[in-house]
């Protein structure tokens, strides 16, 4: 995948990791963040959640306000002093940190530090599969689900198969893939409010695709997409529900 950053060399299994929750998880889906940390802890890892964290800077970066993005990104740099992986429960924010931070900090005095932090960023499912090689035991009821791939997870982080591989490990879960899995749900940050009608048409197509799978749950790894898809599902009074993959996995493991 040429747009994604080069695959990271798989580091040896660490005993400790940092967790970067992201602002959307913080405000709208904190249980997804907690579930992500619990999945990591269940693998015997110590998880550090630096309380000083806020946002990766992406909203301003994509809106044309690079100075503001830089200011916010810079405020995160000192939170990860030890040479440990930084796990992020969002492909989009992970992509911002991995792919765009080096560009954003280019020529800045703290460029080297930013590049170092950037190089340690992992998307959660990618980390669970590639580094931890997790084995999941499903204790939940039989259920059909579908998977929504976020654009940035796929195309910036190169995360395509990992989350689906995790879902397929669940014995009682039937994964039915979307017809247009690769197509954007129409969130796009400020796009959703700048071009609400187009965004609505896009999420409308996505909802129709989700419905045709017959799944009760649509699982995703990105809270931006989930806000959008859940908002549309709820607004359209659809019986399907969107859920972050971390939370879904945690529920399955606990039965």
């Amino acid at each position: 995948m040429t747009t994604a950053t080069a695959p990271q060399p798989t580091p040896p299994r660490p005993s400790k990791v940092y967790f970067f929750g992201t602002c959307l998880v913080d405000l709208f889906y904190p249980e997804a963040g907690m579930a992500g940390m619990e999945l990591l802890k269940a693998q015997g890892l110590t998880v550090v959640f630096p309380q000083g964290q806020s946002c990766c800077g992406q909203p301003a970066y994509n809106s044309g306000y690079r100075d503001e993005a830089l200011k916010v990104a810079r405020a995160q740099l000192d939170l990860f002093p030890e040479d440990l992986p930084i796990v992020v429960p969002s492909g989009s924010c992970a992509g911002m940190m991995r792919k765009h931070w080096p560009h954003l900090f280019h020529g800045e005095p703290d460029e080297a530090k930013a590049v170092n932090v950037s190089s340690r960023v992992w998307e959660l499912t990618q980390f669970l599969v590639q580094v931890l090689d997790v084995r999941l035991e499903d204790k939940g009821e039989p259920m059909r689900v579908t998977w929504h791939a976020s654009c940035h997870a796929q195309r910036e982080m190169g995360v395509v198969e990992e989350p689906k591989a995790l879902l397929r490990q669940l014995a009682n879960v039937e994964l039915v893939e979307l017809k247009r899995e690769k197509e954007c749900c129409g969130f796009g940050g400020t796009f959703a409010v700048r071009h609400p009608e187009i965004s609505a048409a896009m999420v409308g197509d996505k909802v129709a695709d989700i419905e045709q799978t017959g799944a009760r749950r649509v699982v995703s790894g990105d809270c931006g997409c989930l806000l959008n898809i859940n908002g549309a599902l709820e607004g359209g009074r659809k019986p399907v529900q969107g859920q972050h993959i971390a939370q879904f996995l945690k529920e399955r493991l606990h039965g």
Partner: protein
Amino acid sequence: MAEHPPQAVNFAAASKAALLDPQLRGNFRRAMDGLMSKRAVQFADAKEWHDMRALAASVRLRTLAKLPELLETLEANCTRNGIQVHWASTTAEANAIVLGIMKRVDAKLAVKGKSMVTEEMHLNAFLEQHGIEALEADLGEYIVQLDGTMPSHIIMPAIHLNTKQIAHLFKRKIKEAESIEDAAYLTDLARRILRKKFMTADVGMSGVNAAVAETGTLCLIENEGNGRMCTTVPPVHIAFMGLEKVVEHLEDVPPVISLLPRSATGQPITTYVNMITSPRKEGELDGPREIHLVILDNGRSSVYADPELRDTLRCIRCGACMNHCPVYTKVGGHAYEAPYPGPIGKILVPQMEGLAKRGEMPHACTMCNACVEICPVRIPIVEIMGRLRVEAVRPGDAVKDAGAQASKAEAMVWKGWAAMNASPTAYKIATMAMSKLGNAAPTGLPLLKEWTSVRAKPRFASRTLHDLAREKGIPDV
């Protein structure tokens, strides 16, 4: 520079109309789905795709590296071959050149193969004003011209219409047309009409897919044969190219003309690859006696100035980015009201026409990167889009009308946002306030209003992840 700032083109309003047309949406959805799957078949071999793409990108980058020299070589070799080369800084200059040629040969009828550059020039309308009939000969362009509209796709101009709509159009506009809703019938009807025109046209016009500096050869690819008709039958041929279309060597042509149709429509090659190196020579029985090559700038030399934005000029106009763009698929090509719609349009048109007029275009994108994934010459479309968003709110001279969208209010919002997110204390207070009070916000608020037009209100969690982590004793360092 214009006295008055140009009127901004309202993409949102135009796209709204498109979204309300279920027929149009259906036509695009079907067509784009088909094109995407056909393209995927062509690039089933990942290594071949990777290597071909790297090769094509290198060819285009080499063009950019040597652009002024290659244009001079092209000119010298074309001239030696008998092709007359003309340079135009603006579309008005290009139109004037064409008119000069047409007047000299007393042209009444000109036939034209597909050329996007002439769309930039609004050449048909210009010639009509001067009493010269300019007839589009590519079937899709012919349909669009009959309909009095613009192409909605750079490769498939009439993709927004279905067979039934085209049959009705023909019935309305063509005397001998019968009401038969069948592509074969309609195609044959157009064949009969256009063959008469090819036979009698005074001038033939065409675009150029690649102009070879080394040999002075103009390469055109097409399926229908109208391009060959326009460049072979009339006594005069005028070819149009954007100045970036030059390539250094003849051997640079195969990778470009391989990736172009495979990306565009999923065919291994077009029916015709037409390489023209000179007008009719002594003793030859056909071919035009004069060939003119119009090299158009129209803002390209400014696009070339910025090392990041310059990559826009790598484009080979395959249109694949349109086919894969989820926004384009929803609204269709006309909503952009520009010669180039879709992703390439969103980065090229604002640079050509300025951010005052086209500032909204780079925002009509979710930055999903679907286009970047398939662009055969690896243009970082989304990075350029992001950069144009910066230029839109930052006065400067990197792009025409930079800073045209600068708004004090918006800048304040982002300053406030940065202040909140750059200080843990401020962040804590702000997120606490949102958790407590956010859900009470009335849906009539700006932004929330747009969001809730089709969605339920987003619900703030009562406690943030920071709160939960602290409560659960998750270590902070």
